[in-house]
């Protein structure tokens, strides 16, 4: 872990409301958040609480009704070059007319600062990093869901971003594939010195992956819980998930979610 204590992303006084039938719906109602460089922060919350909206605003893909987002020293209005967003719907986010190779090279080619040889070698490196060597010439739709999301991750990382914003990236794959992707993401986060902000509705996933979890209340959302997750490294899918500290965090966050939903039983989809 390489937390520096320096805030790389700052969100202050964020409000977001949408025009809806018969008035406006308030999604975010005053969110303040500072993300430290090198941290792995999960944002959890009930469905429709505005966590994806929050992430999109941080990415510069949506504009807040009021409030500000700063990346380093500059105000975010368009997507900042060092911040890359990974979408939940990889089948729609990957370009079906491009091969794996071309998809991964997409960001590099459009930066226009690298030679063809540099792009080719970086692309090869990233494809290796997500363990897709041999699939360079395949089209995304010829791959399984987990592989497709790995292509999307490789494409995002090829530009050497400082911050990776991920919107429920593993929610559409089966449990085993998900565990594999989680390990891959944690390894990449450590190796590449990334800052990751990870939106999920899965409390277990959030606690397991992160060193900080932020729980939003239901819409209009504010921050309900903001907790550091101090668990031994390296984490292990079985051992870590059995630790008392892990279970304590999990229970604490689940209780908040259930209270929010007015639920007694598990119904967090």
């Amino acid at each position, binding site marked *: 872990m390489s937390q520096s204590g320096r805030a790389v992303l700052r969100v202050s006084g964020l409000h977001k409301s949408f025009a809806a039938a018969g008035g406006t719906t308030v999604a975010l109602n005053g969110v303040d958040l500072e993300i430290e460089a090198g941290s792995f922060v999960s944002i959890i919350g009930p469905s429709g609480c505005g966590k994806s909206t929050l992430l999109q605003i941080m990415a510069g893909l949506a504009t807040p009704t009021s409030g500000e987002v700063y990346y380093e020293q500059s105000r975010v209005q*368009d*997507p900042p*070059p060092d911040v*890359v967003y990974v979408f939940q*719907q990889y089948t*729609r986010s990957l370009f079906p*007319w491009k091969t794996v190779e071309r998809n991964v090279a*997409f960001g590099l080619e*459009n930066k226009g600062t690298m030679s063809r040889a540099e792009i080719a070698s970086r692309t090869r490196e990233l494809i290796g990093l997500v363990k897709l060597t041999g699939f360079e010439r395949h*089209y995304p739709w010829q791959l399984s869901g987990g592989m497709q999301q790995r292509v999307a991750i490789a494409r995002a990382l090829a530009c050497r971003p400082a911050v990776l914003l991920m919107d429920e990236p593993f929610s559409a794959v089966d449990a085993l594939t998900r565990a594999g992707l989680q390990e891959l993401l944690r390894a990449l986060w450590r190796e590449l010195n990334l800052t990751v902000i990870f939106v999920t509705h899965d409390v277990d996933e959030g606690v397991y992956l992160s060193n900080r979890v932020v729980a939003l209340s239901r819409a209009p959302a504010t921050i309900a819980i903001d907790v550091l997750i101090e668990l031994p490294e390296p984490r292990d899918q079985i051992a870590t998930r059995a630790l008392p500290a892990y279970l304590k965090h999990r229970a604490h966050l689940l209780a908040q979610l259930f209270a929010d939903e007015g639920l007694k039983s598990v119904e967090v989809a």
Partner: protein
Amino acid sequence: MTDIVRTEQPPAAVMPPAKRPARFGWLWNTRLLGVLFIGALLILWEIAAAYAIFPPMSFPRISSILSIWWQLVVSGELLGELLSSLWRMFAGYFIGVALGVGLGLLMGYVRFFYNLLEPITEVLRPIPSPAYLPIMILFLGIDDEMKIFMIAFATVFPVLLNTYSGVRSVDPIQLQTARTFGVSGRKLLTQIVLPASSPYIFTGMRVSLAVALIVMVISEMVAASNGIGYFILSAQRGFKIRDMFAGVLTLAMLGYILNRLFLLIENRVLAWHYGYTQQRS
């Protein structure tokens, strides 16, 4: 009434399974059946003509048409007419496609151009192309420019409308993805919008290819001194009926070959699209 319907059309579940796997059963499931059907019709034609069921003057034997056709091919006459026709057709077609794609992209991508051009498109589009042929003759005369303009004009609309629909149907997530990589403006158009809407564009181009063929023939029939349309009409006027049929036969072949070629290109260019949609369904 209901009784009759029931006896004539038993519900599918009651239908007896197809039995009797005949010796030529395989034929029923292939396209060869349709080819043989054409052959049978031609033989029927030959017999009908031989027994002079229709006035032989206007209904010659198919064998004599084919032999005239072959003579016209060998003499190079047909090829000459065809080349002048194809030049006009493709000149008009490619101008029309370029305009259609360009305007369709603009209209789909920039609201201003949609508001500006949508009404005039809707006014001009329903006019059948032969209707403005006389106007074109007034302004452009009867030379190639007129025909190329006619063809281009008729070709624009199918391409334009399909391109527009294609642009509107581009997945917003693809656009957002491109934006997170700092791609915007013109680059977004060429990198994402154009390839993503290419299946639609190809559909428009295929419709337009048929339209271009039609308009080419019509404009040549009305005002030309060469070309396959002129050839057919002047053969009919000169009572060279077999030549006339040979010309029509040539057009059938041309249309078929053009469509085949188009599909060949489309299958190559849009291979990703067929794979992608198959995978998703």
